[in-house]
């Protein structure tokens, strides 16, 4: 060991370091380093990845951070041992929590009292001592150095020398040397690394510009003067510091002194309190069998065997406490009547099913328990719980309360650069105008990758061959997946026995009163932090609402678990693609697939949920599966040995579990390797990991007698999972919700639509589209009524009464006021409503405009006039004026005025569809309405409607899909890429379109292949209609 780099920034020094921690570890290994420190600014964000990468490369990972002190100066801290790690975490947590997000300043007082187990380096030019020396303030430099020496101890404080071929550093080094000699403080050399190779200067410059909101042309000396801040060969460092050999030697001493590894962390769960005389396992055993008696009636030998098997493994892995903690959360939800359901691999567990954590019977569906938990992996499983989204906060607060804020926290989500964001930021840094980058960014989806940027540049007005545009593309590629800032994960909570701030730094989130740890869910899991995902799911809210409405109006108590999942009417509805509002299968792609797949049983729904996803689509699995299912193609297997694994999905691998089994069976992977493959399949950063596994996977398959072509095909199919592989158990949990929501739509349509409207925003479609769908299903929608409406939509017999929540201008305070007065007594008159609710004038006028006051005998305009007259008046004044009512000749509303007022005020119309007003005109043009398409001949056709959805899926190669709605139904329009580009204006910006094209029918799916697109105008100036675009 000749030299160890002890001051190194990765891209987790946000917008400063220009390499992933993994890349730095790899480079260090390549250069022959035996150890490397990671010292990102004010955090330990990247240390888990760094630790893993170092482990892989067999070099020692030294954990550290360059902290910012309250005086603004930097100090590098390195962790010597576990105590040091814990101290550093606490120092950082305090610094981060006591300052606004994005700032962190460690109080000197705090640093002086917490320094055990840490080594400090005086830092770069931004360090206090270097700054003072550069100003020739030797007296204060000495004082500071002595203080730090005293705080950290003689052997734990070093004066840091740096040399990037800069004159000021040469001067500083000599001053530091003198100071060190005078005060007996050792020197240490570092290179303050910001990128692994000199080429990294480009990206680092760009990052600096992004951070400082400037461009490269303007940045000037904000940028580093040269490209020397890279990992250098030990020999080069020795030559650079030839005058200070001891500074090089000391790097080795420090590296040897730092002996903390994240493997030592081993965070544990808090002990779950169990009844006296019980152990966690005995208590879990008892609860499981109590649950089993409820769930399995009668208990089958398979179920009994499975439960016993699982309990055995849980006992051996000592995970009973974890299961009890999750059970407790589910119990809390049940006690508070909050709908919850375990998702993901937990549904593979019969114990989870018995404990009421999951709702899918894994025994009945023959799900693979080892996907959830295996003895070989020896780690806590991941249990995700979906909770009805309107009550998720109650559950989070319960966890905080139960375990204390010191021991519970939310994991972060590292927001990283993708297509749009990278184009915007890199483009601005390169000096492109805001409009140019904005225009290019808008051509991209949020998750576009760098390859797509190349495509879109060609479409934009930018000259692809210009140097700056080329740089833009190159740098966007480089910056892709770079962390930009932290967000909150949408539900991941970690619970620890030790205070969390001793395990990982905690910082403020943007959301008030929320804090997050500095690791995302994968990093937390890698360290062994046990995470419970408490995810909000809108569909559970809908189901909860529907169950309550059915109970209230029909006196029927529905338990989704007892539905049987075999009702033919439900499958008929699904087979017809009539799925607006139905969970997971309401997108256009799903709607088009359902008539082809024609689900007949619950497992078909499991397949349907997993089938229409980017993974299977990219892996070209969808059409083969459908053809095989419909008998148009023979069921074959890539290799006979795979038949038992793939039989259920007709030879087409769809699920992660199948991926695991294929790897084990065909390539001879061990369970552990197969699990790594599985993780790669369901992982955000999985593409790279999948590629790494590809060689051994294909080699293994070839070795087992599968020819190379077939092996490559199997690998391609598996690799497609990298975008988002689905666990079979997860699909099963979701399929359950598909069935339940479809069941409600079939048997309780009024309750279903009422619940759906109350659960908004939810799903794919706007309330207007949902209301039109309800009308087509015979559910009458009643307008808002000041005397009958509640805040939420309600049922009046089988009719749905719109609630006040749909009236624009009414917000939470209006809700409070209206509900408070409604609890007192019914509103008796318009005046009574106005004075008691005391709503602001615009809100009252909006209510009048949507006809909410017709119950008091006023038409819309009369009500507006009346409301305007009541403004700023007291009830007393009003009583004096009651007798003096004058006739006011206001113009009356015609039908289109009513429609416009409804769309203006509610965003929907309870009565008419806007297209009705154009129908006469459209009939004259030979336009066919949606309901007649089924019987129309294939060939040229004209259709028209409101554009309710626009989509351009990444997997569709530039095709745009429009869904039009008229008063009779929906029309699917397909726009070819060249036309999508040519007619972009009309397609993107028109709320109503007339489309000329060709009618095509296939397996009950009707599409219009669009040729001409003409925007349509409404006679009265149009309705304010919001479509759901490119979601």
């Amino acid at each position, binding site marked *: 060991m000749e030299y160890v780099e002890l001051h190194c920034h990765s891209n987790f020094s946000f917008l400063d370091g220009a390499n992933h921690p993994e890349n730095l570890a790899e480079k260090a290994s390549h250069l022959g380093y035996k150890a490397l420190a990671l010292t990102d600014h004010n955090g330990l964000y990247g240390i888990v990845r760094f630790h893993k990468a170092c482990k892989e490369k067999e070099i020692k990972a030294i954990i550290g951070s360059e902290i910012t002190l309250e005086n603004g100066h930097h100090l590098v801290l390195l962790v010597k041992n576990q105590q040091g790690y814990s101290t550093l975490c606490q120092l950082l947590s305090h610094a981060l929590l006591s300052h606004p997000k994005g700032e962190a300043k460690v109080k000197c007082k705090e640093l002086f009292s917490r320094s055990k187990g840490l080594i400090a380096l005086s830092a770069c030019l931004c360090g206090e001592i270097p700054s003072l020396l550069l100003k020739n303030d030797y007296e204060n430099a000495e004082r500071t150095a002595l203080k730090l020496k005293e705080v950290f101890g003689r052997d734990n404080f070093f004066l840091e020398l740096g040399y*990037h*071929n*800069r*004159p*000021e550093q*040469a001067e500083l080094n000599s001053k530091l040397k003198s100071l060190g000699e005078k005060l007996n403080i050792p020197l240490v050399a570092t290179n303050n690394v910001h990128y692994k190779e000199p080429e990294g*200067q*480009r990206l680092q*410059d760009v990052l600096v510009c992004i951070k400082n909101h400037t461009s*490269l*042309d*303007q*940045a*000037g*000396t*904000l*940028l580093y*003067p*040269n*490209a*020397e801040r890279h990992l250098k060969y030990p020999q080069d460092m020795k030559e650079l510091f030839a005058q200070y050999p001891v500074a090089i030697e000391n790097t080795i001493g420090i590296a040897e002194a730092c002996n903390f590894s994240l493997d030592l962390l081993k965070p544990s769960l808090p002990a779950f309190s169990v009844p006296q005389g019980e152990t966690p396992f005995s208590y879990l055993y008892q609860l499981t069998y109590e649950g089993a008696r409820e769930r399995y009636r009668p208990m089958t030998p398979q179920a009994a065997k499975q439960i016993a098997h699982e309990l055995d493994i849980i006992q051996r892995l000592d995970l009973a406490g974890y299961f009890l903690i999750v059970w407790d959360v589910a119990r809390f939800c049940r006690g508070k009547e909050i709908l919850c359901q375990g998702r993901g691999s937990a549904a593979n567990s019969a114990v989870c099913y018995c404990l009421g954590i999951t709702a899918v019977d894994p025994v009945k569906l023959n799900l693979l328990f080892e996907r959830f938990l295996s003895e070989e992996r020896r780690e806590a499983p991941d249990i995700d719980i979906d909770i009805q989204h309107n009550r998720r906060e109650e559950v989070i607060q319960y966890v905080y309360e139960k375990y204390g804020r010191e021991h519970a926290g939310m994991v972060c989500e590292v927001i990283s650069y993708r297509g749009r964001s990278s184009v915007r930021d890199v483009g601005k840094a*390169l000096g492109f105008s*805001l*409009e140019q980058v*904005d*225009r290019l960014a*808008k051509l991209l989806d949020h998750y576009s990758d760098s390859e797509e940027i190349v495509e879109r540049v060609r479409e934009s*007005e930018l000259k692809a061959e210009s*140097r*700056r545009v080329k*740089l833009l593309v190159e740098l966007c590629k480089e910056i892709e997946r770079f962390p930009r800032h932290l967000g909150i994960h949408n539900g991941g909570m970690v619970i620890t026995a030790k205070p969390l701030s001793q395990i990982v730094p905690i910082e403020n989130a943007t959301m008030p009163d929320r804090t997050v740890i500095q690791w995302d869910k994968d990093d937390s899991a890698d360290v062994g932090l046990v995470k419970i995902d408490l995810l909000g799911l809108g569909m559970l809210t809908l189901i909860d609402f529907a169950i309550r409405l059915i109970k209230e109006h029909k006196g029927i108590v529905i338990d989704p678990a007892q539905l049987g999942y075999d009702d033919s009417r439900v499958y008929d509805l699904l087979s017809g693609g009539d799925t607006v509002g139905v969970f997971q299968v309401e997108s256009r792609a799903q709607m088009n697939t359902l008539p082809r797949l024609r689900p007949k049983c619950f497992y078909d729904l499991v397949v349907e949920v997993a089938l229409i996803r980017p993974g299977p689509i990219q892996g070209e699995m969808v059409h083969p599966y459908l053809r095989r299912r419909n008998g148009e193609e023979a069921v074959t297997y890539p290799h006979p040995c795979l038949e038992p694994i793939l039989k259920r999905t007709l030879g087409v691998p769809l699920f992660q579990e199948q991926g695991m089994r294929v790897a084990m069976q065909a390539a001879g992977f061990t369970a552990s390797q197969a699990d790594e493959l599985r993780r790669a399949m369901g992982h955000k950063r999985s593409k790279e990991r999948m590629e790494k596994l590809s060689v051994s996977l294909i080699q293994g398959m070839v070795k087992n007698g599968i020819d190379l072509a077939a092996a490559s095909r199997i690998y391609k199919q598996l690799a497609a999972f990298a975008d988002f592989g689905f666990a079979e158990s997860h699909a099963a949990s979701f399929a359950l919700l598909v069935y339940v929501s479809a069941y409600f739509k079939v048997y309780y349509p009024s309750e279903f639509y009422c619940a759906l409207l109350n659960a908004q925003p939810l799903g794919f479609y706007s309330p207007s589209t949902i209301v039109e769908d309800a009308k087509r299903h015979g559910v009458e929608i009643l307008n808002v009524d000041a005397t009958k409406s509640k805040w939420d939509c309600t049922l009046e017999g089988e009719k749905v009464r719109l609630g006040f929540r749909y009236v624009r201008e009414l917000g939470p305070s209006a809700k409070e006021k209206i509900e408070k007065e409604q609890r007192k007594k019914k509103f008796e008159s318009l005046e009574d409503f106005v004075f008691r609710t005391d709503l602001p004038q615009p809100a009252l*006028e909006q209510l*009048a*405009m949507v006809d909410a006051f017709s119950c008091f005998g006023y038409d819309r*305009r009369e009500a*507006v*006039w009346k409301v*305007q*007259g009541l*403004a700023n008046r007291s009830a007393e004044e009003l009583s004096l004026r009651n007798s003096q009512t*004058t006739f*006011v*000749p*206001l*113009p*009356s*509303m015609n039908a289109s*005025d009513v429609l416009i007022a409804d769309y203006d005020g509610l965003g929907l119309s309870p009565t008419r569809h806007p297209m009705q007003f154009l129908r006469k005109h459209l009939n004259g043009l030979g336009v066919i309405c949606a309901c007649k398409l089924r019987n129309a001949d294939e060939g040229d056709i004209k259709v028209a409607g409101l554009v309710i959805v626009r989509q351009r899926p990444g997997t569709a190669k530039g095709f745009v899909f429009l869904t039009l709605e008229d008063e009779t139904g929906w029309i699917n329009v397909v726009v070819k890429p060249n036309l999508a580009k040519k007619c972009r*204006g009309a397609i993107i*910006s028109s709320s109503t379109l007339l489309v000329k094209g060709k009618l095509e029918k296939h397996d009950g799916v009707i599409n219009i292949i669009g040729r001409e697109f003409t925007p349509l105008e409404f006679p009265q100036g149009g309705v304010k209609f919001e479509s759901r675009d490119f979601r």
Partner: protein
Amino acid sequence: MNKRTACMLIPKFPLVVQLRDQPELHEEPVTLAENPSDRSKVLHTNVRAADQGVSLGMTVVQAKNVCPELCVLIKDAKKEQLKFDELLRKLQRLSPFIEEANPGIAYLDASGLKRTYPQEKDLTEELISFVRFQGYPVRVGMAGNKFTSLVGASISENYSYTIVPEGKEKKFLQLQSIQLLPIGQDLYEKFYRLGIKTLGQFAILPDQEVAERFGSEGVRLLKLTRGQDDEPLKLKKLDEKENRIKDLEFPLETQTGILFYVNSILKRQLNGLAQKELACEKILVILKTEDDNEIPIHLSVAQETNRLKTFINMLRLRLEKVVLPASVKEIQVKIQRSSPLSSEQLGFYQKRKPDLLGQKIIQLKRILGNGNILLPQITSSHKPEGKFQLVPYTSETKRNLKRDTKKKSVHLSNSPFDFSQNSTSGLRLYNPPKPATVRVENGLINFVIADFWYGEVIRQTGPWEISGEWWSEGYKRRYFEIELFEGEQYLIFLENSSRKWFLQGVFD
């Protein structure tokens, strides 16, 4: 005689004013925005921009997204006012009684013009052709009151008119759009909710009910819509009476006396201009003598100014050359041309005197030629010669300089080759660096020839390295500080790409 009012309306006046100065934009899609910000709202558009989907209320960014080749002009209220004042002054030829409502809208009292224009259409046609001649599109309305005439003008086409016969105001207004009422968006939305789309629909509402809902403003609007606008014309004082001193206490014979009175008149006028952030370019002083002669003295400055002293000095010089035929009995001072005051300068002259710098620059330009007046700017760069640049002087440069000063100074404090800041080394830079010949032996520089000197190197420090600007031409240099035998010290560098040596500067 019944009151008659003509309304002259120049549609989109703020945009028209801007386009008059830039005829090359007539065929382009153009829009006018409140300010240069991307979020600024579109105030007016020309037909070409509107055809491409640009509409009022869009932000500039939105408009540019709709129409990428859109040209965005920025509203200039002072200029508008100036141009409109100029037009109105000329219009006084037609009627001396003019009210300016807004830039772009004016009312003329047409009541007493029957003798000159027997038919009302004669006046309206004259008005149209007069304004058209000045280069503006125009619409004219003639009616018994201001509001009705405005509505008449608003519904007319460009270069045409609407005459509302006497007593027919109410009937005329009845079917006109409610949007013609001069009201804010809030009130308009209230009317929209009531279904009131025409002025007639509003006019028939009961007075008291309207008063309860819309207050005195509602009552006023009711009167307007019923054709009962009785508001008199607020005449614009286009010719300031104060600019003239008649009947002096005693006739003036001396230069000092004349200057004294001119001083008092002009001071007031220039203060008035300054309050409007305008400055004066041309002044006419008319001296009327006792023998009824008028002696005009024109004074003009190259750069607009509000400095009284400048004009008084100029007048003094001119008066020295003028022989007065008789004593002066009346003095008149007219400001003939004014324009917006230039933005504030930095340095050289004290604050609030921007005109002085402007004048000096103009003088320099006359002497040195246009384009030879350069402004030094400090810039931020790691390249020593890049720390300073000369840019052609324009008012825009001045503004940029002011905006950037703070930022640059922050940058400079980090500069590693910052010889200008806190440095005692006193490096004089060669800009551009001069080529040098260097002999290197055993990795050490031992002899240098550059420019007009050469010598043996006895000591060297370095190399220091800088590299950057990879996004344009890019550079990478290795610097050395060298000392020659006789003690001279130089900064030289080796350019990586060309492998050539250059002399960067000499240490004093």
